[in-house]
């Protein structure tokens, strides 16, 4: 079966997951993001590529940063943006999701940006919407967060140029993290030398090895000589049952402090998808330190989302 994200010419028409996308498509998106980055520095911070198009932000799950950056990106492309915060209800599943989409399609939507707590919801929408409508996954369950993955790759490429010799450590709660999944798929596709998954057994299951990563339950081993450290947020709202003794215990073992950071390469960069929990997964001195690129990630995120939206909108089914 053909990848539902690509048309018959192999061009991107939806962005649902990084998994299965060719390296050339990823590089193309990153290159395009580079040209949009400079738009944000112009006197007129707007280009007309999506003029006359309607982008619907459908957030079935809360988000501030992702929704805002998608909104800014769409507006800088001159699209009309409609934000819908749809609180999750127990019946908002299956057919009712499709009914929502049918109704919004009747309002002449051209693009849906979808965040949903159920893995696969954006696929369902992409399968059922009209052929001219494009879908961007803005995070679905534990499955994927492809624009975060791409902006992480953009950040790494910006500071490190090439992926070939890089050691990247992803630290923390990988089991609940769609960001980690998207990052791992992107890093392996782009040819990073080594990707490490670092954290306690409850949050970094051994079967992650199947994704081509090295699993480390010891923090020192995990970040030693790393070029890039991606810290993940400890997702309290996703934790059911006792997966951790306490947040304090987690910080002691896996929280990124200046002392632990010294084990990585001297020019290592520290990333975090945000929002950060200071004193839980990352120490303030590191989050605000000179190796932190957490705020540039946010800036790059706008350019990356502009690249994704304009690329898929310009490709026909």
């Amino acid at each position: 079966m053909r990848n539902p994200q690509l048309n018959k010419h192999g061009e991107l028409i939806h962005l649902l997951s990084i998994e299965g996308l060719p390296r050339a498509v990823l590089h193309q998106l990153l290159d395009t993001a580079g040209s949009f980055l400079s738009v944000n520095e112009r006197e007129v911070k707007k280009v007309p590529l999506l003029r006359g198009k309607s982008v619907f932000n459908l957030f079935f799950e809360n988000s501030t940063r992702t929704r805002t950056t998608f909104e800014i990106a769409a507006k800088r492309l001159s699209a009309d943006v409609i934000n819908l915060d749809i609180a999750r209800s127990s019946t908002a599943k299956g057919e009712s999701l499709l009914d929502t989409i049918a109704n919004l399609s009747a309002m002449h939507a051209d693009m849906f940006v979808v965040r949903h707590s159920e893995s696969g919801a954006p696929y369902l929408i992409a399968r059922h919407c009209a052929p001219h409508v494009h879908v961007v996954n803005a995070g679905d369950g534990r499955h994927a967060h492809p624009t975060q993955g791409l902006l992480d790759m953009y950040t790494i490429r910006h500071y490190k140029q090439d992926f070939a010799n890089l050691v990247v450590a992803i630290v923390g709660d990988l089991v609940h993290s769609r960001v980690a999944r998207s990052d791992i798929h992107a890093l392996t596709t782009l040819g990073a030398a080594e990707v490490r998954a670092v954290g306690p057994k409850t949050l970094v299951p051994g079967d992650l090895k199947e994704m081509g990563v090295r699993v480390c339950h010891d923090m020192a081993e995990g970040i030693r000589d790393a070029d890039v450290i991606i810290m993940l947020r400890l997702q309290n709202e996703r934790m059911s049952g006792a997966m951790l003794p306490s947040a304090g215990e987690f910080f002691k073992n896996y929280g990124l402090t200046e002392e632990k950071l010294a084990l990585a390469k001297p020019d290592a960069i520290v990333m975090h998808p945000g929002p950060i929990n200071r004193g839980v997964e990352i120490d303030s001195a590191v989050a605000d330190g000179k190796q932190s690129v957490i705020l540039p990630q946010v800036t790059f995120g706008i350019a990356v989302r502009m690249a994704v939206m304009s690329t898929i909108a310009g490709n026909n089914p």
Partner: protein
Amino acid sequence: MSTLHLDAEALYRDLAGGVRGLLQPNGALVGIWSGGAWLAERLQQDLKLEGDCGVISSAMHRDDFDKRGLSSDAGQTRLPFEIEGRHVVLIDDVLYTGRTTRAVINELFDFGRPASVTLAVLVDRGGRELPIQPAYSAARITLPPARRLSLARDEAGRFSFNIEEGE
């Protein structure tokens, strides 16, 4: 069957003379990606102008975006000087429909309000679809619409033309 022969290097020397005549005080060269950018880079040196020339891409303002999408090799606008109040000379290799010129004029105005904008090209091949005329063209020719004409540059920086039969 084609007997068309264009000597790009000879035309470049004519273009250099033409552009010298167009440059005003407070003038600036801006080359249209990609052929025009190569020309502008060389003109900047040969005409002994200070600083770097600008490079401009039509990608963000193309009118065929809905049909063709984003180009995979569209270049990137780099204007290493203020546009506000400048007398800008746009440089392109081949002028055809005028749609690229229209797009880059829009792009230029996203950076400020130039005092004036003029256009100098190596070859004007006719076939205009918009009211755009060059202030200088080194050659004027007529080609069938299916014929594609573009500038090429070898490793030594010498110019030649590619002429291809389109679909």
